[in-house]
């Protein structure tokens, strides 16, 4: 069996409720496929490129059949040249197109930092807004089955330090579709952070094309005693933890920021105003993570509202180990969130 597929297929089918009305149910990957399909149909400037986008696997099914439908000029395979591809996408964007560049693992994007950080993200500012770079870089983080140190990184935190780059990290099918559409229509470079373990998640998704404002979070679950802000896949773990907390008599509010940059600071402050406690769950390593930035926002704007120190539940500051035993020790789960939350509320 191909590798992470095994792991993902073994996961429970996690249904996220209340995202949108209607009763059309899609998986996260189907929602993304629909976002690409409808965007390609709507706007002739949109094109998709990346390693393997037109092959039989079609990036875990998310780009399957699109080449056949829209032609090889608009959906095409590329050389394994991440850095230059990023610059090539940026150049095409400068010339008026709307490229979507796909990295099947977030790790591979590390090769493209020069073009992404030195060029694409800074161009608009450096030239006084005269040239814009409307491109989407879509990355997928993996986890498990010995993905190891070079195939499992979640480096969204590192990238939050890049001015000019917007970052979205949707966790539900509804958000995946809406934020992909927003990323495509946005005229700045947008990094679309996706997690392989979300691909099977299901939820309600309307058929029509819609967008979701970048920088706007949502409350996934109302609560009174503790705020859990969860990033990307950690939302699933956080919702499971909140359920368990309720059984333990603790009322947890779960906040899904959906966008990391710009970040919905108000939703964090408002929730902390209600609960007085903040726990942040992130998919990346702890130091310099998205969780760090969220904690900094809370410390700056909601310090007076906090009854307890902020807690971060993240991966430790080590490269990802391959061993299943070490992987288990490495990745935080709903159980870790639960324990930390209990500590914060009870002690």
């Amino acid at each position, binding site marked *: 069996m191909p590798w992470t597929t095994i792991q993902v297929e073994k996961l429970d089918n996690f249904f996220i409720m209340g995202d949108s009305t209607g009763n059309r149910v899609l998986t996260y990957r189907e929602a993304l496929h629909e976002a690409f399909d409808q965007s390609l149909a709507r706007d002739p400037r949109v094109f998709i490129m990346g390693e393997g986008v037109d092959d039989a696997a079609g990036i875990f099914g998310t780009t399957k059949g699109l080449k056949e439908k829209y032609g090889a000029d608009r959906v095409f395979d590329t050389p*394994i040249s991440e850095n230059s591809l990023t610059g090539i996408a940026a150049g095409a964007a400068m010339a008026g197109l709307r490229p979507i560049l796909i990295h099947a693992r977030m*790790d591979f994007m590390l090769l493209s930092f020069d073009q992404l950080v030195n060029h694409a993200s800074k161009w608009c500012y450096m030239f006084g807004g005269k040239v814009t770079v409307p491109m989407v870089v879509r990355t997928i983080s993996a986890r498990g*089955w010995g993905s*190891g140190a070079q195939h499992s990184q979640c480096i969204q935190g590192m990238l939050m330090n890049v001015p000019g780059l917007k970052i979205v990290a949707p966790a539900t099918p509804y958000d995946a579709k809406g934020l992909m559409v927003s990323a495509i229509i946005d005229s700045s470079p947008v990094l679309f952070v996706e997690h392989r373990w979300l691909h099977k998640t299901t939820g309600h998704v309307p058929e029509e094309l819609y967008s979701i404002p970048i920088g706007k979070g949502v409350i996934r679950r109302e609560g009174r005693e503790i705020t859990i802000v969860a990033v990307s896949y950690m939302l699933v773990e956080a919702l499971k933890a909140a359920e368990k907390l309720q059984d333990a008599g603790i009322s947890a509010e779960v906040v899904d920021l959906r966008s990391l940059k710009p970040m919905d600071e108000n939703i964090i402050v408002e929730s902390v105003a209600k609960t007085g406690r903040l726990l942040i769950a992130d998919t990346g390593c702890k130091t310099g993570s998205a969780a760090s930035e969220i904690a900094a926002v809370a410390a700056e704007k909601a310090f007076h509202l906090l009854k307890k120190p902020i807690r971060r539940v993240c991966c430790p500051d080590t490269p990802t180990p*391959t*061993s*299943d035993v070490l992987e*288990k*020790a490495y990745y935080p789960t709903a159980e870790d969130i639960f324990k930390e939350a209990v500590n914060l509320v009870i002690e």
Partner: protein
Amino acid sequence: MEKSKWIEMYRTMRLIRLIEQRINDEYKFDEIKTPIHLSIGQEAVAAGVCIHLRKDDYVFGTHRSHAQYIAKGGDIKKMIAELYLRKTGCAYGRGGSMHLVDPDVGILGSSAIVGGNIPLGTGTALASKILKNDRVTVVFFGDGAADEGTFHESLNFASLKKLPVVYVCENNFYAINSHQLSRQVGDNIYKWAQNYGMPGYRIDGNDVLEVSDYAEKAISRCRNGEGPTLIECLTYRWKGHIGTVDDVGDGYRPKEEYDYWVSRCPIKRFSEYLINMGVLNSELIESIDREIYSLIEEAFNFAQNSPKPSPSELLDYVYADHTG
């Protein structure tokens, strides 16, 4: 080349094949919890090159590096234990199949980032030059790696500095499902080397004698301070890109292409040659296989019965534990 070396190359190819077949057979039991990339069909490249390397020479492999590890003399028990992610593995279970290491025989670690090992191998060659020793580095990589900037930048640098490095491109025509011709104009890999000012050859990578010939010359050029060489070895993987799946037919690789390459099995071709030359016969074939099977049995037993790392080791080795 002496005839004893022929038998050694034959044995190495058989060793790679049989180990990988065993990995293939064991994979379904879900105890090898790591992605694997098998080199079945490509054995001649590693065997023909590494036969000319000394123990202290360096090799750098990729995500698909069982073959080089075996051919360079890496510890087989530790390799299998690493695939089983045991504490006794060559990377103590931290690396897995894509990240094999055995510094005792010059294997400083394989990278699963395409093209990621090419600068590293260029760097060990730079060290050999600065340290004025005659250690040679061989970097193995796929046709896909020639897409990366690291390939071009490293070749330029190695040529400029006349470094003792041999770039061995195992061109199996595919990067995952993507054919070389959908990524490159074609015919380019060895010519690029020529344009970077080093000898570049395209050879039959399923002919171990041809591989060995070219590798021998390239390695001795390195030892004589004459600089780098690139050898593009045309070959073919029999299994799918990853795991134990087959990726033939049905939107994947054409069946005729696959059949053609299987008919050019490097081991079959070489054994037929050796039999014709009178150096190999059925008894020797059997005794080599018997010895290999017992080695494999021992390695798998060792691995399967080894302890897993303990969670308390998670934070070890993030930083080096000494100053220089």
